[in-house]
């Protein structure tokens, strides 16, 4: 079927295209304008914005941690309406997740924290998220096997083989490290853990773990660099940790997750202030790092993190007052519900910090849009956040509602920058494609998969982004004016780096001895997942 999107503003920063023009789709791909052929379907999109489907690089949408949060908080997600499609309105279900993302024009979402031993559950959940493509980042850095390799001073190759074997077994797109060593240290009753602290029993520092994993991914030529959740999340004055961690990257690629939570100083009477300007300057000066924000938006949410040490320390501020802390085989997870309040000084500083980072980091290729769903805010608040970035009036209005004592402790009131559609497209399409090594999406070039979102600007930016006018997934029109017409099932994107398989024999023996089970017990066989051909490979560099 030949489809024509006629006369829209095509915003495709990946291919340096921003013009009024046509877009042609055939057999699930974008094609060059065909000569002398009539389209089977024509959509007049004059006055509308045509972008590639958006890519969310960091959103906790699946796995045992997310599911425990669902079970912990039945009172926060009551359904209200009957669905047109199976389970589409079951609040916080996998089905609803796909429906809402697609309705906003997102077509690829990355679940950034899957414990290797929980990989099957994560993929089972992802398989039941309709429409969108998905991917996982698996977590290492608090696991006994890796810490043992580092303690024994084993070779770079051994670490790389272990990383590759884990990526392959868990069908992951990349690697996440969460408070490197901190969760393991918490099992030894550490209550704080910083970059140069040693994990008890192993004598290995957080810095050494990060270096080892960063190097392994470079050696394996995995496109996505180490995706790092630093130490000291949420702690006043932690900008120092963030800056030290950026230096620790030593010029090698590193992705720093949800940096809003690391942009805190200790000024003012509450000893809590925004240091976002300092952090943004550091990021601007360090081209080897990329960051996502983890913006806070006011309202009820729940924090879900494999940083058990940090989550345990947050249990006192849980709202509603209940939490789950799970010491896992490596990282485990902590679930702490939380309500960000507009009238709360600390929360208002956090809100400001995130926006400052968005507005002070110069290169939209190195900054990514996230709320660390659901940690800073649920992903459903993205449209409101786009509106804040695109309108300084909207920001001024938001600032008028927070405690005015906050204003002196942030540079936000002085920032006049406004994002345009081009920058939004860069941040949510082109840059994520580059970050993960996608050559087939995040763009509208010839040959790209026809994941296309069409927005109808109507003066209300949030509304424009909340309900996409049209969304095509693999060329299939699935959304009209924010409404899903039918389900289809996307893939989980994964890498498959080459490595020396000898490590698997060693892992087999290790699992028999330490876990008393076969290593194969944690495998994710494709045939056990509910959709045919559930995976799609993203190539590693040659």
């Amino acid at each position: 079927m030949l489809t024509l999107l006629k006369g829209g503003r095509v915003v495709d920063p990946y291919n340096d295209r921003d013009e009024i023009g046509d877009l042609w789709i055939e057999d699930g791909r974008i094609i060059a304008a065909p000569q002398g052929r009539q389209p089977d379907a024509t959509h007049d999109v004059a006055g509308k914005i045509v972008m590639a489907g958006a890519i969310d690089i960091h959103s906790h949408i699946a796995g045992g941690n997310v599911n425990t949060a669902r079970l912990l908080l039945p009172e926060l997600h009551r359904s209200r309406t009957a669905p047109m499609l199976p389970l589409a309105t079951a609040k916080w279900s996998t089905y609803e997740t796909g429906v809402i993302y697609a309705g906003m024009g997102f077509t690829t979402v990355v679940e950034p924290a899957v414990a290797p031993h929980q990989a099957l559950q994560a993929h089972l959940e992802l398989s039941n998220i309709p429409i969108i493509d998905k991917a996982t980042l698996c977590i290492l850095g608090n696991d006994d096997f890796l810490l043992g390799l580092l303690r024994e001073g084993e070779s770079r190759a051994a670490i790389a083989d272990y990383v590759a074997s884990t990526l392959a077994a868990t069908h992951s797109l990349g690697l996440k490290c969460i408070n490197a060593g901190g969760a393991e240290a918490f099992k030894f009753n550490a209550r704080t853990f910083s970059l140069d602290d040693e994990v008890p029993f192993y004598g290995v520092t957080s810095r050494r773990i990060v270096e080892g994993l960063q190097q392994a991914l470079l050696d394996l030529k995995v496109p996505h660099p180490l995706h790092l959740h630093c130490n000291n999340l949420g702690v006043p004055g932690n900008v120092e940790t963030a800056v030290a961690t950026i230096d620790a990257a030593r010029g090698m690629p590193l992705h720093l997750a949800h940096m809003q939570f690391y942009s805190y100083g200790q000024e003012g009477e509450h000893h809590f202030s925004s240091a976002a300007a300092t952090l943004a300057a550091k990021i601007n000066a360090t081209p080897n790092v990329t960051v996502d924000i983890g913006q806070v938006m006011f309202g009820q949410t729940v924090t879900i993190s494999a940083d058990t040490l940090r989550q345990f320390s947050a249990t006192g501020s849980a709202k509603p007052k209940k939490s789950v802390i799970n010491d896992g085989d490596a990282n485990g997870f902590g679930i702490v519900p939380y309500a960000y309040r507009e009238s709360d000084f600390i929360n208002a500083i956090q809100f400001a910090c995130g926006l400052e980072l968005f507005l002070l980091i110069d290169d939209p290729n190195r900054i990514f849009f996230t709320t660390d769903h659901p940690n800073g805010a649920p992903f459903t608040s993205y449209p409101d956040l786009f509106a804040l970035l695109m309108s300084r009036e909207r920001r001024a209005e938001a600032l008028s509602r927070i405690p005015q004592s906050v204003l002196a402790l942030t540079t936000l009131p002085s920032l006049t920058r406004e994002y345009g559609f081009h920058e939004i497209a860069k941040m949510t399409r082109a840059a994520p494609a580059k970050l993960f090594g996608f050559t087939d999406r995040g763009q509208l070039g010839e040959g790209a998969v026809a994941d296309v979102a069409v927005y109808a600007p109507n003066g209300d930016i949030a509304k424009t982004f909340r309900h996409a006018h049209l969304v095509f997934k693999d060329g299939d029109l699935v959304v009209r004016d924010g409404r899903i017409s039918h389900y289809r099932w996307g893939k989980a994107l994964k890498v498959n780096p080459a490595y020396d398989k000898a490590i698997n024999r060693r892992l087999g023996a290790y699992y028999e001895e330490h876990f008393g089970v076969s290593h194969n017990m944690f495998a994710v066989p494709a045939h056990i997942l509910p959709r045919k051909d559930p995976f799609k490979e993203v190539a590693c560099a040659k």
Partner: protein
Amino acid sequence: MVDARIDGKPASLEAAAARAAEILSRARLPVIAGLGTDVAGASAAILLAERLRGAYDHMRSNEIFADLDVLRQAGAMMTTPAVARLHADVLVFIGDDLTTIWPQLIERLAPGEIPPLQLELELRQFIWIAPPKASPVEGVAFKALETANLQETLAALRARVAGRPIAASEEETRRLDEIAAILNKAHYGVLVWGRLDRLSVEMATGLILDLNKTTRFSSLPLGAADDAAGVVQTSGWSTGFPVRTSFGRGYPEHDTWRFDADRLVESGEADAALWISAYSDSTPNWKRKIPLVALVPSGAQFAHEPEVRIEIGRPGVDYDAAEFAREVNAIVAREATQRSNLASAASVIANIAEQIGGDA
């Protein structure tokens, strides 16, 4: 060849599925009960419940909600068998049913051994509160804390751990203090329990939270049989809620009293049932007779012969399946150990769903 029966007489799978579809779609409030099945079976059952606007529940709900109700009211700290085995220098077992619930418990947690990932390589301390009459652990000594009232004993122990006075004899206090001292000195302790009542689970959870003010402690609830944990997880991602959820209004609503399958049947609110039991020959002991479709292994005995009965195989034995594995505290893929032609619950449910018209 699938053994299918309608009113006790042999029938084709197709005819049985058609009759099942008729019974279930004609009901005002059908209930899917038992629900002892793997992830695929639970997924299919929940989607069917939605189409039927029915409710679903699991046969082990009383055990499921003893732990889950406390978790969602007061929170929880928990861990895995591997962490308990590798890290714990203190293991506390609660209750006389643990090795009945999980025969491999002792082998898995190795209470008589040295935890290999602790700083000091010493034998772990092993305490058993309310132990069984005959010790199931040969050659491994444990400190027994006998009790006639577990709730009171846990409360008293919690008080003594926190250094608070209790109304008890000197002898009793001394006994508790000895245990309390071990808990307070633990580097990483784990409480292990099976079937406990809610108050005991809440007290054990409170004890763990108190201990974590100064040291590390966690819990390892053993959970219930019939893949209860796998079904609850599947239910969680499918609807946001655990079992005891209904689609009477078209969207999922969860209520542990309203959607208790036994109550729905006995009260007459449910007017047809689908019973699923793939792991055991369990059958419902409802006094009230309602139209019943049963997906069960051969040999399951019913008080009233079901209108439709279809034989299914066992997950992980007759066919490959994803299910919760207690030994690793995760959903795992089990390869069939004795692959057969017996149908899976999921495939039979799919057969039934296909026979239901669009306006069911």
